[in-house]
């Protein structure tokens, strides 16, 4: 068991390094930060451009640049962005901002997704099931940038009707907000509502469809009938034997689901004006910044692989056959 997890971990770390190298390579090949400088009017003098090329190490071969950046990154130094400011200045606050959003979104998404799926399976072909199915089909067809804008629109309308400003949709905290710790926490939570909802709703729809199918497969199985025949109550049989088995395939899905979630990041952060990693990625690409973009990529890769490892663990916890 331990060796299995260790092997997976080593594999993940290797994948991470390769992915980061390839991203750096791609970004260095396609980005041209000097061209942005040349677009200034009047164009900057030759010496300024040469300085910039030297400052960004563009005169060195790409592998050398990569190893220089990577050597720093291992020690937690992610280099400078194209304007010469250290990436480190913002990386941790931004990572925490994004993780807060993604973590809460995933948690709510997984819990409610499983719940909705199980209820849908148990009450198959009843009104609850049809409503849940219809809503999740619509949500699956709806990209985050439509859902997020829709939520924002609804929040504005609700605020207008109720005459309050409870639902906030700009930033992660009210600018200049001061107060006790509890008031500050409350303010932050209020800002979390809408973006978390934007992320969680899509996940609930996605997970609940799979959970419903998995649960339906289990509901028709012999071992559940045996459990009932042995005298377990319906509820006990369903949750202790049924749900546990139906959760196994969901563990794998969870690893993939996190990837889709990360893609939702830039949109959610853009729409709700959060300064997280997703927003930073867009900044990095628009300013043609290889260091910045690769840093965000590293963050995404670590998140995806960590969730993969978590999925492996969940798999082992749920399925006794894996625990050898």
């Amino acid at each position, binding site marked *: 068991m331990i060796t299995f997890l260790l092997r997976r971990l080593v*594999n993940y770390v290797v*994948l*991470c390094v*390769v*992915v980061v190298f*390839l*991203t750096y390579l*791609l*970004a260095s*090949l*396609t*980005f*041209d930060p000097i061209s942005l400088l040349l677009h200034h009017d009047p164009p900057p003098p030759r010496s300024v451009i040469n300085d910039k090329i030297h400052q960004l190490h563009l005169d060195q071969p790409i592998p050398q640049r990569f190893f220089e950046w990577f050597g720093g990154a291992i020690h937690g130094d992610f280099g400078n962005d194209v304007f010469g400011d250290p990436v480190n200045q913002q990386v941790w606050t931004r990572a925490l901002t994004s993780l807060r959003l993604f973590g809460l979104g995933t948690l709510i998404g997984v819990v409610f997704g499983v719940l909705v799926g199980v209820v849908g399976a148990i009450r198959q072909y009843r009104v609850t099931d049809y409503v849940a199915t219809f809503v999740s*089909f*619509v949500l*699956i*067809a*709806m*990209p*985050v*940038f*439509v859902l997020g*804008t*829709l939520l*924002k*629109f609804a929040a*504005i309308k609700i605020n207008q009707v109720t005459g309050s400003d409870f639902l906030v949709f700009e930033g992660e905290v009210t600018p200049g907000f001061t107060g006790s710790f509890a008031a500050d926490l409350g303010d932050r939570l209020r800002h979390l509502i809408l973006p978390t909802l934007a992320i969680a709703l899509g996940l609930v729809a996605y997970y609940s469809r799979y959970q419903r199918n998995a649960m*339906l497969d289990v509901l028709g199985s012999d071992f559940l009938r045996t459990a009932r025949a042995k005298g377990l109550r319906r509820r006990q049989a369903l949750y202790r034997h049924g749900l546990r088995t139906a959760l196994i395939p969901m563990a794998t899905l969870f690893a*993939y689901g996190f*990837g*889709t979630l*990360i*893609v939702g990041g*830039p*949109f959610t952060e*853009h*729409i709700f004006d959060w300064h997280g990693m997703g927003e930073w*990625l*867009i900044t990095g*690409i628009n300013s*043609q910044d290889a260091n910045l*973009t690769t840093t965000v*990529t590293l963050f*995404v*890769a670590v998140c*995806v*692989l960590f969730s993969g490892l978590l999925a492996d663990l969940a798999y082992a916890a749920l399925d006794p056959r894996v625990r050898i």
Partner: protein
Amino acid sequence: MTLVESAHPVVTRSRGRLVLRRLSRNRLAILGVLVIVILYLAAFTYTWYWPWSYQVSDPNAYLSPPTGTHVFGTDKDGFDMYAQVMRGLQKSLTIGLLVAVLSTGTAAIVGSVAGYFRGISDRALMWLVDLLLTLPNFLIIAIISPAFHGRTWLLFVLLLAAFSWMITARIVRGMTLSLKEQDYVRAARLMGVPPLRVITRHILPQMSSLLIADATINVGSAILTETSLSYFGFGVQPPDVSLGTLIAGGTTSAVTFPWLFFIPGGLLVLTVLAVNLVGDGLRDALDPNSARGRRREQRAFRRHLRSGR
């Protein structure tokens, strides 16, 4: 005339007809097909019946809400929204279809080769799949996007296809592993049929139903990825429009000029929803073990018996 024939006339149906019949009983799937056909026709023939073009602005109507002359209103430069949306739909539908066909094709080749040959090629290909799955395709294409600014949108299609075949490839590999052990495949192999021929003649046709259903689902996800990239300006470039660029334009003014956001947004959701419904219906109809398909069949059979009496 034999006894059996006189008592119960045996009707044999080809597989295609059976699938078609199962599909036609799924009302939601039929609705999906209808919506897609209508959207396709509306999008690709709009120049024949619509007076406005997506490139010509109306100087008398800036930000006009939906009216008689501009059914979907106009944007801030006086461009007719109906023409814009139809043009965007053209692009999104074409890209979605092309990407789905290309990526499902790639998935079929990679998955069957990995599953059939096993060994080193399997390990290498599956490692590649793992690698590509580590990063969402949105991220990779966004990073490459500066390189295809000002180039043809077909390049964008190729990139989208190149980074969206991995999950289907995994499924195909798994199926190949079990199909390979089937007697008819073994027989073909022992008769000396070359491996590539075994794959194309015996293995891939056997999973055609899965591939068709998956290709349909992939159309939906390709449209979503395309619009997502275009939303941030990493996909379809102006002056061309896609549903993604239109929605991006309407997002900031969703409250003041709602038609700019709700019309392209609603059309996008409708399109993907219709495609997904068809994909789901196809999967049920094509899968001989599908409980839902069988259930529909049984229900229809009972109805048939009842009406027969």
